[in-house]
């Protein structure tokens, strides 16, 4: 029966795994800039744009939808949230350009942008002024 032959690991499996691992490694090597600005987006609207280098001491921002964001000199993170799964807080600190964290129940995104960083998706060099 044909299906019996599927139970051993076959060459195709190894090839697939190797190719995908290589792709993952390549992606991890893409240089990502330091965090310069952070954006907090609630329900599609950019509510805060923060220049991270101007942050003197870490402070917390309480948003109206039950989310608290912790802003530091070179990082931003979800500090606590009233959502039931807490994945947003679990994401941890965002420290490099392009890092993103989402709280889906509260429809909040925090993004980090770097100055003059290479935007890997569109292939453009994004400047500080880009919205």
């Amino acid at each position: 029966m044909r299906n019996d032959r599927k139970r051993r690991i076959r060459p195709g499996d190894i090839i697939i795994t190797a190719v995908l691992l290589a792709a993952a490694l390549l992606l991890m090597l893409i240089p990502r800039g330091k965090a310069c600005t952070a954006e907090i987006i609630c329900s599609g609207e950019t509510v805060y744009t923060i220049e991270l280098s101007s942050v003197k001491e870490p402070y917390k921002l309480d948003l109206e939808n039950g989310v608290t964001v912790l802003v530091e000199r070179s990082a931003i993170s979800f500090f606590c949230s009233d959502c039931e799964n807490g994945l947003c807080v679990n994401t941890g600190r965002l420290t490099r350009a392009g890092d993103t964290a989402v709280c889906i129940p509260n429809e909040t995104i925090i993004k980090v942008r770097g100055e003059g960083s290479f935007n890997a998706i569109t292939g453009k060099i994004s400047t500080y002024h880009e919205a």
Partner: protein
Amino acid sequence: MKHKRLVRLTLTAVLAAAALALSLLERTLTAGLPFPPGIKPGLSNVIVMFACSALGLPFALGIAAVKSGFAFLISGAAAGFISLAGGIFSVVMMFVLLKLNKKNRMSYAGISVLSAVTHNAGQLAAASLIAGSALYLSYAPVLLVSGIIFGLITGVILNSVMPAVIKKGFDFFNI
């Protein structure tokens, strides 16, 4: 043939229940562990892959739909939509790979890896749609690596289990 269809339908229902049970088990086991957002071991994919291979595409999609319905009931519309997106992409990928595997170059391990990665990608795309903003490549390595690891695990599980199931006569479609 009518008889066979009924058997397939009933088996799908039982498998869907088993898939839900596995999801719950997974939740319990990984409750405190530091998993990245949205990445799960995906044990229930063993069942979905078996369904795709032994029962056919529509029934496998049915199981994916039941899983999404469950996510919807437990965690809300967003979770349901995300689960559905990941599930559909992943099942279609499984089906395509099974069809392409005529020369048997790949076991369930490879199919599982690719469908796990596709599942994660689908979920990420759905989450991006809901959030209204692209959640970038910064997440792609996590997506790939976790897809590979958990895909291999579930694939090897199915590799091991399949012969026993076939002996019991449950392999109707035999893709």
